[in-house]
């Protein structure tokens, strides 16, 4: 192929290796999980098809990350999108899957179109298709061209990553795919978009102007909040997790955006540290989101439903799934000493340094971002209390939940592996942080002397440059463990009566409460629905059927939130597009003679115009 020279087909530098590692970490447990999951859900032939498609999907993602050539990148990117489309519509007997696949396909291709435009522009300027050549030619690009490229890349990769308002396909596509595929899509595919952003914007276009970082930060902040608020309102567990993916992409981009801002101000070491914080959250999110999706797959196999309002009490019937989900929920809520806590701590430190050292406008901006991140992490914790509490705790709300059985061995082992990995990434934070700093430095190159201080220190220490803030997660784990153990032992030893009697939950004298008086997920999220009603625009529909004026026989109550992006942004665009198509249809007579006449006249005109001497 003429555009590929032999020595520039693959690129395995640190950044590519990092993302390949992320893809591998998410995909391998998913394959293990799918052995059990597919056997339980589909026939043998279909399972084989699904596995084959998933293998191609993972390979194409690896090809995207490892490619060193624009055409190859685009080819692998398209392949990845197409194969994931087939996986999304895998259960094509459900109309929801087909609809989701259509939305996903259209949006991913629009994103790819933007990427194509950017690549063509770059090639036109640099004259080569290779990354190396473009990186060498990039300093010669005009600032206007760089700005246009930035915009195109942001939209193109943002559509795949799920930045608001381009996120709309995520909550449709991720729930419909089979669970192991959802975990790979959410864990690895959206990270490939982050890889694209890093590679092209940070790795090629050089030192950015400040407003790029600001735009990314604002978009990231909005994504965080929008994602988590919509997640709070969801009761389909996979849709909830999909919205959380939007939120976590926002958090990753908060780190990366801050890094770009620092880079444009010339603070090399801090910029690399900020990028490293973003990369850390990338890995963490891949692992714990993959874990959570696998758990949701396990729930689906056991109970046949994804609606948490019909679940409950699963912790007694599916203890290992529940424990894995709890670990994942704790990680995503940034509770110490797990991995999510470390990466959010790091991003807070990034903003704190920005807050302290920036000029006054920058101070307010970073303070706003810090508050945004804090609000997001607290809302995420609330959402997972709801998800875990309603789905797993208390009493079952339906027969499906009451008769659930624990997942098979392959499913359980995959989940437990990922849970253990989450804990390990948290405990080994010092080591991991130093590795990621090295990765971030590889494409930023701050002076070596400044780095050595950062990379020194014992294996468990995380040191953030520019402050004397330190974190030692093993010590926190030790303190927690010692505290809990000491307390437990002390109380058990000193309590006079060592008995625990079983009884019924306090029922205010009503005899034998059952699951209908339990708190529902809708009720749990109601305060949030009211607090954010300016954004969610909830509405209710009621219907009364009366016997007489005084006797209401039936009352139906339905409450929903308005999907504002879909209704006010996408639906008008789609309607406008169809209107345009209707108008253009007027040209189509349906008659061959007219078409031939069009051709005839066009050719005549062209010949006359170009033939004129």
């Amino acid at each position, binding site marked *: 192929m003429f555009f590929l020279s032999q020595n520039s087909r693959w690129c395995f530098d640190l950044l590519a290796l990092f993302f390949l590692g992320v893809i591998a970490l998410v995909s391998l447990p998913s394959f293990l999980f799918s052995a059990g999951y597919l056997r339980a859900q589909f026939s043998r032939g279909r399972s084989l098809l699904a596995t084959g498609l998933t293998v191609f999907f993972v390979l194409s993602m690896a090809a995207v990350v490892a490619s060193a050539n624009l055409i190859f990148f685009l080819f692998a990117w398209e392949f990845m999108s197409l194969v994931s489309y087939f996986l999304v519509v895998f259960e094509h007997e459900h109309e929801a899957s087909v609809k989701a696949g259509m939305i996903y396909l259209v949006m991913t291709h629009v994103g790819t179109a933007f990427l194509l435009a950017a690549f063509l522009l770059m090639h036109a300027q640099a004259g080569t298709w290779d990354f190396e050549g473009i990186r060498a030619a990039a300093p010669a690009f005009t600032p206007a061209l760089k700005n246009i490229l930035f915009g195109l890349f942001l939209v193109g990769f943002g559509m795949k990553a799920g930045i608001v308002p381009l996120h709309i396909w995520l909550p449709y596509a991720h729930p419909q795919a089979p669970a192991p595929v959802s975990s790979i899509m959410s864990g690895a595919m959206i990270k490939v978009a982050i890889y694209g952003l890093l590679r092209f914007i940070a790795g090629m276009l050089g030192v950015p102007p400040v407003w790029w970082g600001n735009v990314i930060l604002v978009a990231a902040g909005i994504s965080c909040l929008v994602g988590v608020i919509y997640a709070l309102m969801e009761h389909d567990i996979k849709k909830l997790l999909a919205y959380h993916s939007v939120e976590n992409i926002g958090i990753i981009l908060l780190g990366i955006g801050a890094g770009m801002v620092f880079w444009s101000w010339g603070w090399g070491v801090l910029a690399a540290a900020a990028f490293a914080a973003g990369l850390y959250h990338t890995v963490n999110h891949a692992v714990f989101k993959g874990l959570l999706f696998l758990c949701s797959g396990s729930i689906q196999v056991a109970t046949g439903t994804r609606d948490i309002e019909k679940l409950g009490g699963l912790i007694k019937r599916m203890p290992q799934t529940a424990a894995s989900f709890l670990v994942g929920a704790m990680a995503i809520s940034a*509770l110490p000493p797990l991995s999510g806590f470390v990466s959010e701590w790091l991003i807070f*430190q990034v903003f704190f340094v920005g807050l302290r050292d920036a000029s006054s406008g920058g101070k307010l901006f970073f303070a706003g971002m810090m508050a945004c991140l804090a*609000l997001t992490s607290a809302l995420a914790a609330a959402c997972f209390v709801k998800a875990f*509490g309603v789905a797993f*705790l*208390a009493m079952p709300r339906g027969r499906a939940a009451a008769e659930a059985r624990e997942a098979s061995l392959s499913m359980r082992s995959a989940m437990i592996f990922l849970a253990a990995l989450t804990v390990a990434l948290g405990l080994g934070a010092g080591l991991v942080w130093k590795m990621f700093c090295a990765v971030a430095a590889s494409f930023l190159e701050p002076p070596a002397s400044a780095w050595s201080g950062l990379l020194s220190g014992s294996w468990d220490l995380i040191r953030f440059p520019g402050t004397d803030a330190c974190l030692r997660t093993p010590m926190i784990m030790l303190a927690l463990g010692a505290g809990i153990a000491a307390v437990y032992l002390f109380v058990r030893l000193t309590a006079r009566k060592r008995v625990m009697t079983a009884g019924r*939950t306090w029922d205010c004298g009503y005899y034998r*409460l059952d699951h209908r008086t*339990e*708190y529902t997920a809708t009720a749990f999220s109601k305060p949030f629905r009211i607090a954010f009603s300016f954004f969610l625009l909830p509405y209710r529909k009621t219907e009364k059927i009366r016997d007489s004026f005084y006797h209401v026989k039936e009352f139906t109550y339905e409450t929903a939130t308005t999907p504002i992006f879909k209704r006010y942004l996408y639906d008008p665009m789609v309607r406008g597009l169809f209107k345009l198509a209707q108008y253009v249809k007027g040209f189509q007579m349906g008659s061959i003679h007219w078409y031939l006449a069009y051709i005839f006249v066009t050719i005549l005109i062209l010949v006359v115009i170009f033939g004129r001497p």
Partner: protein
Amino acid sequence: MKASLLLLQAGIAVLGAPLVSGFIRKVKNALRMRQGASLGQPYYNIAKYMAKEEVVSEATSWIFRWTPSIVLGSTVAALMFVPVFSFSLSAPGMGDVLTLFFLFSLGRFFLALAGLDTGSAFGGMGSSREMFIASFVEPVAILSVAVVAGHSASPQGGLMACSMGMSFSGMVAAAALFMVVLAETSRIPVDNQETHLELTMIHEAMLLEYSGPSLAMLETAAHTKQLIWFSLLGAILWPWPVGSSAALSDIAAAAAFFVLKIVLCAVIVGLTEVSLAKMRLFRVADFLGLAFLFSVLALVISGLGY
């Protein structure tokens, strides 16, 4: 030596925490012109709970049984990060104020889960409201502490170098933090510790199903958390050089100053509780929004140099 000092400090703090609650109640009762319960009433309550048998609901799981240990354990671990009156774990770089906040989140997470685990509407309601209020508290707390730390004397100061003293922005940030303290310690105007009506309790609702030693653990955790917040507030507004030496005289002086700060905090909280009424849940969101405004104001003022 330092480790033993740390443990001793933690032990004394945990043991002394219920006394602070008792003192606040005494202040409130004095303002209400009543005799009220004695100063050591919280201790009598805890002793009573320890002596009682525990009844655990059949609907619950291991989360319900382990939550009291986790909550108290995480609070005690958080205690080790605060410079109470001597050396704390933050000094050699184990963590900082953010770690503290997230340790509180850990306890709150499990307490909310335990509330849902009981399967009763009380617990669920309490969990929902607690998480709702916590989500508005977090940004305010983190921003206030960041403002304070950002204005600190040392240029390398991290989030624990809170040695602002009585500067203008520090005081505004402390006002914001005071509102956070009211929310986190479940005091009026956010929550009422003296009620057990389903629509008016938040923290108490999550504890409703607990009895016996578990309830004792949770109550101790609440007292300790309150002490941690007071000491944090005091350390920000009125710091005293802590942890520099292990000499007895220094420690005694630091301890005395600490007790003075706590007493002052307690008096102010008591006054607030008596003067205000408990707010509706959605007004609490406005209240915390006001606190957020204060912290932003503190940021602007510190940016101007005051």
